């Protein structure tokens, strides 16, 4: 029991890695060790390229402070709050230690965020944005691959180092291990009694954003035997919900859902399953192409609208595999990509006889009372259907 307590402490410590007070801790240590850190603003950035050069890719989480006074000067009120909070973090100096940033044109707000960071001098060192196609056809893969090659060349030229087959293969191996470990953990969530709550799963995935992947892998591997027998600390194991969202970093939102009387048994989120689902194909001889292919085609989001149907199919499959009772579509209030897709997403799921509800949220944890009421109403609806 004492040993389990110790392991649980270690697990909680890992989970807390992306908490606001700690999320740059490992990156700052890395810097003190004389190494470089590159800020990554999107889950479509092939982090392995950065990792292959011995640098730390740090996925940026915007501040969770409610007010963003510095960002408000540049950002309009009703635009994506993730990007507004990211801008505020940068302007307040939280990421001044970065040696560069890599962004994509994920949406209009992502482009404008990059503009602001360039304009304010916060995008220093190696700063680049690349084009992310909105589909995953072969033509689009070729376009994306071109941009990934440019990213590779850009990194090599700026940092005067070479990304070769060896160091890239090693990086891919490490990242694939992360993906497989997380997929293995998610497999355990199919159980009636999941080892982790939805909030914990989110905290675990976002913890991996903040540290070198090999360190994350080692720690998670050592915790696995414990996790296999652990029971998620939730009040109720039913109903089981799947949460779909983009740019949901704050675990408080999933804690809120679980306090409302459900368990988040699976997710369709870029800060969850979409980050790690699907490995890079190591049988392909062109490793950069293999990287490009994996990143563009793995798990589309509403943003990658031309390929999004396959992800909705995947969600419908997960509903069966994970024994899901209802899907909570949890878009960020001003995320146009996800919000435009809401009617279609709901229609497809209802056609598959899946209960679905949409509840909008902010980026930082605010207006929780209102959200809780709506989530509770949905849970009651799900329970009613289950009882019939």
């Amino acid at each position, binding site marked *: 029991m004492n040993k389990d307590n110790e392991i649980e402490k270690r697990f909680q410590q890992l989970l807390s890695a992306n908490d606001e007070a700690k999320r740059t801790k490992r990156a700052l240590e890395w810097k003190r060790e004389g190494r470089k850190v590159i800020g990554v603003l999107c889950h479509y950035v092939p982090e392995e390229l950065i990792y292959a050069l011995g640098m730390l890719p740090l996925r940026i989480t915007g501040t969770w402070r409610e007010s963003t006074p510095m960002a408000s*000067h*540049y*950002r*309009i009120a*009703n*635009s*994506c709050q993730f990007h507004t909070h990211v801008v505020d973090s940068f302007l307040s100096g939280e990421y001044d230690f970065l040696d560069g940033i890599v962004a994509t*044109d994920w*949406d*209009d*707000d992502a*482009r*404008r965020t*990059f*503009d*602001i960071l*360039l*304009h304010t001098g916060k995008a220093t060192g190696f700063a680049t*944005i690349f*084009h992310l*196609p*909105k*589909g995953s056809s072969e*033509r*689009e893969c070729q*376009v994306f691959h071109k941009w990934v090659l440019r990213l590779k060349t850009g990194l090599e030229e700026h940092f005067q180092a070479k990304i070769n087959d060896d160091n890239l293969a090693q990086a891919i191996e490490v990242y694939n291990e992360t993906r497989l470990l997380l997929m293995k953990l998610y497999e355990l969530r199919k159980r009636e009694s999941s080892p982790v709550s939805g909030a914990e799963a989110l905290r675990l995935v976002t913890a991996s954003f903040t540290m070198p992947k090999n360190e994350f892998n080692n720690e998670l591997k050592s915790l696995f035997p414990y996790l296999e027998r652990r029971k998620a600390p939730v009040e109720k194991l039913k109903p089981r919900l799947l949460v779909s969202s983009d740019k949901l970093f704050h675990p408080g939102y999933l804690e809120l859902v679980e306090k409302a009387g459900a368990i988040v048994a699976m997710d369709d989120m870029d800060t969850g399953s979409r980050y790690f689902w699907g490995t890079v194909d190591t049988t392909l001889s062109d490793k950069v192409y293999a990287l490009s292919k994996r990143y563009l085609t793995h798990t589309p989001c*509403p943003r990658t*609208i*031309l390929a999004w149907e396959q992800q909705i199919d995947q969600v419908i499959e997960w509903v069966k595999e994970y024994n899901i009772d209802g899907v909570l579509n949890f878009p960020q*209030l*001003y995320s*146009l*990509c996800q*919000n*435009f*897709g*809401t*009617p*279609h997403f*709901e*229609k497809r799921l209802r056609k598959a006889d899946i209960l679905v509800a*949409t509840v909008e949220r902010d980026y930082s944890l605010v207006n929780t009372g209102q959200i809780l009421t709506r989530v509770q109403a949905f849970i009651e609806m799900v329970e009613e259907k289950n009882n019939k």
Partner: protein
Amino acid sequence: MNFFEREISKYERRIKHIRENPDPSKAQSNLLLYEMFLDHRKEQLRAAEKHEPFIYMGEPGGNRLPRALGLNVACIVAAADRAGSETQRYLQIYRAAGFPPNTCDRIQVALGLAISGDLPPPSLIYTCLHFCNPSGYGDINLAHYLGCKYFAVEGEEYESSNDTLMAMVHQLEEFAAFAEENVPGAKFDKEKLKQLQQIDIQAREILRGVQKYMKSVPAYLAGQDVLRMGHIELREHPRYLEYMRTLRDELAYKAESGQPAVPNERLRFYWLVSAPFFYNPFEFLAKRGVSVPMYEASQLGSGHRAEPGDDSTYGRHLNELEEEARTRNCGGSWAGLAENRVKDIAKVSRDYNIDGIVHFQLMGCHTLCGSATVVGERIEKEMGIPSLYVEGYCLDQERFDQTQFETQLNGFIDICLGRKAERRE
């Protein structure tokens, strides 16, 4: 009444009014414009009543290729701009469909109009994904909502190289093949495409004839006259070029009469993004001695970078499909990074002797409004030209606060006058 019928009724009334109340002080080209629109809407109504297939797209800028395929095109955003008294109804329909309320109101009204049934149902929706999210995501999710097919092209807005141009050409070829396969009667006519492009080149040349009157100090053309150019969806009308020449000649006559657009011009503003379509801010400014000799979204504004017929951009003469790809590839300066927009606005500001820039912050336009402060600060730093950021809507009149809007404009006028006085000292 459907959209076409309402439009026909509107233009018939206007034409009747002009004929019964001739006023030589009003532009004669207006009568010709209304007659052309009347013919156009009648033709569209005829096609709708015969159940000919229609496709939807946003604005007429890229409709040459669909027209060269023989398709009837309903430009839903351009139509939304003419929604008039139906605007609030379309907004309610849009929101009831579950689409996001925080996006550009032109897109909201366009999608509401498309869902309302006031237009013939589309066989296909054709969209461009890289200009802005609301138009691209709106169009595709509209297609899902209506249960119709869609085709999207996507450019790489950061560069206009031969590679990206040819990548767009391939997409346009795919679109043509898709349309021929899925829309009954669609057939690509290369000669027609060439003809439509030639009309646009000629129209642009005609417009250039009045540019000097906007650049001159004081400006002889400004405000509403600067907006009143284009109407490219009418390009196939046999009198279209006649209209453009008549408009040019009328504007030139007005300018040559020696009367500046704004008597006692004190300041010159560059108006960015868009404007409330139900209210004329230029009249308000003119009464205060402020002329607006350039408007970003006008045919000659910095919002449009793809010059048809220009051989210098790609270092060679473009064939028909390449010319079409040009407008899709890197058509506007607003969709890429802010740097492009800064350069374009700086150039116009220099050319037109601009004293102040008004960023009309169209609520929900993340593409343009998201770069406004960056653009404004750069221009101020590099050229000493101040900016005003004023929120507003193009179509949703119920949310417009005229008093607040005018108060902000007045305050900005005072700032610019002060700056101008400082420069003189």
